[in-house]
């Protein structure tokens, strides 16, 4: 993870240097590239590493596929020359399957995540090409994991609500008059609540007998440290349309009711972005 931050820092510094050289680039197009209003549809494929100690103490690995629909709109009421607010809506659907090296049982899983964020944008920071943004984000995640091993604990449901801090940067530049913008965003849940069975509690007790035992658990950065990072590059292929490629790193983990869970997803993204 630290390696990724270093890479980002290096990327930022190199882009900053490039930005100095491109001071004479046409301002109209760059201005459009900086505008935060856009929507993206991105398809992802990558790998996932999963742990759910309710099902197994062993980590599972396998492919994952995702679809992400992101929309960001500038809030025109709160805009100045140098700053402004925007609203981001992000829907992320993941499907994954995984197994251990023993190739015995298999996990089949999926989740739907929705996050809404208010970002405060700082335009033209240090260079006219750089926009930074940060703000609060609220989200809900619903999903589950099914183990083909079956038994009385064949699956585990995941549900959590969280309040996060969302930060990022957007940098626009040219390569031989070909406009490109680089976007980075990191979302870090700070507090929330999540569903979890108790340590050895069966779903039979929960659903058939209506037993409740600390199944809604408060989460915070100490017991459920998670981080989603997205780095994308948009190649402007039309007046308002861009081809977008990128990386999505989604780290989710929690230790709730004595049960350990994690889902480390890494993958590539490809799709398109339309500016408004």
């Amino acid at each position: 993870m630290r390696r990724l931050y270093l890479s980002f820092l290096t990327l930022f510094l190199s882009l900053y240097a490039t930005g100095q050289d491109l001071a004479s680039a046409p301002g109209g197009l760059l201005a459009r590239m900086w505008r935060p209003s856009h929507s993206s549809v991105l398809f992802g494929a990558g790998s996932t590493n999963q742990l759910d100690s309710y099902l197994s103490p062993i980590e599972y690995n396998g492919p994952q596929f995702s679809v992400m629909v992101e929309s960001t709109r500038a809030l025109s009421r709160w805009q100045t020359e140098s700053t402004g607010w925007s609203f981001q809506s992000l829907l992320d659907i993941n499907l994954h399957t995984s197994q251990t090296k023993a190739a015995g049982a298999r996990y089949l899983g999926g989740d739907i995540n929705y996050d809404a964020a208010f970002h405060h944008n700082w335009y033209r920071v240090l260079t006219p090409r750089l926009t930074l943004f940060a703000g609060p984000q609220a989200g809900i995640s619903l999903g589950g994991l099914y183990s083909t091993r079956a038994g009385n604990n064949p699956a585990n449901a995941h549900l959590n609500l969280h309040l996060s801090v969302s930060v990022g940067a957007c940098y626009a530049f040219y390569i031989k008059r070909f406009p490109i913008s680089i976007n980075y965003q990191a979302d870090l849940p700070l507090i929330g609540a999540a569903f979890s069975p108790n340590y050895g509690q069966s779903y039979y007790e929960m659903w058939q007998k209506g037993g409740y035992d600390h199944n809604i658990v408060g989460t915070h950065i100490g017991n459920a440290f998670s981080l989603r990072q997205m780095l994308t590059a948009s190649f402007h292929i039309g007046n308002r349309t861009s081809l977008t490629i990128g990386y999505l790193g989604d780290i989710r983990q929690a230790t709730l009711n004595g049960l350990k869970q994690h889902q480390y997803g890494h993958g590539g993204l490809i799709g398109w972005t339309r500016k408004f």
Partner: protein
Amino acid sequence: MYDLFDFPRRLSRLFILAASFALLALTNQSCVRGEDYDRDPDAVFQSLWRTIDEHYCFLDYKQQAIGLDWNEVYRRYHAQINEKMSTLQLFEVLSNMLSELRDGHVNLYCSADVARNWSWKNDYPENFDTELRNRYLGTDFRIAGGLKYRILEDNIGYMVYESFSSGIGEGNIGDALHFMRACNGLIIDVRNNSGGDLDNAERLASHFTNEERLIGYITHKTGSGHNDFSQPEPEYLQPSNGLRWQKPCIVLTNRSCYSATNAFVRNMKECPLVTIMGDQTGGGSGLPFVSELSNGWTIRFSACPMFDSKMQHIEFGIQPDIPCSLDTEKAHQGIDTIIEEARTELKKEIKKGATRNTQNCQP
């Protein structure tokens, strides 16, 4: 004048501060990791011993009941583990270790074998003969879901449920009871039924009570300690909305009545017109969970203990109200003495009921 941009600026500062703290915390966070795949015999042994130590629900009870000391088990079996042993030798040692638990819900699965301890039925007389049972069923019995049933010559209903894994719905039970509505009594034969779905067990029992009844308790582990359990949750049997049996009923049991069948017998024992007859049930009161060892072998173990209505363990079985056994000599003559004793008992009950009714009707 109120500065429209003042609030957003303050909010943004707050979130920059929060983000800084979060990133600072990030550097101190350790990852939540699981066990790695490992085929080393010692790693597999540790993985199994730890899984049972932290998740098995009867360690404390079995220490009291049968003197099981799980730490002593570790010492005794760990001494048999060495790096050069073959996979099957390792499996054998681990199987023997699990046998110490004397639990039919504990199994270790590898591609070549399934480790089990079936002493709960193998160490006792079977008290059951399938061929004999089928003679009573005849060939013209009816089938409703998992139920087989017919009316015996003395107007007593005879119902067989071979596995609670075979589904039964309210309609199946209602139709079977309706068919036998004119019978003087009912025999439900669950001998050799080794369990299945608890919902089926509860659904069938719900046709033998007219009111909500406390049938037992269920609990689960809340941590890795041997005594880390939740507050026992009472379990109630709700009367069915369908046809309910209002006459004497006898449930026939043997040592092969296990798991969900054990729970069924527990539930029926609380119903007023029901008598349990035959041999003690096999037990198996821990709801089994499945997990995995570091080499990929599957382990099944009891995770959630169930109790009777007096909060007593039923892991080692339930005593019948009327103990009786199968007479092998008479079995050779085609007579199932357990079924015959049940018929006799039902006739006594019917006679008692008739006398009570006559007395109640006297002016």
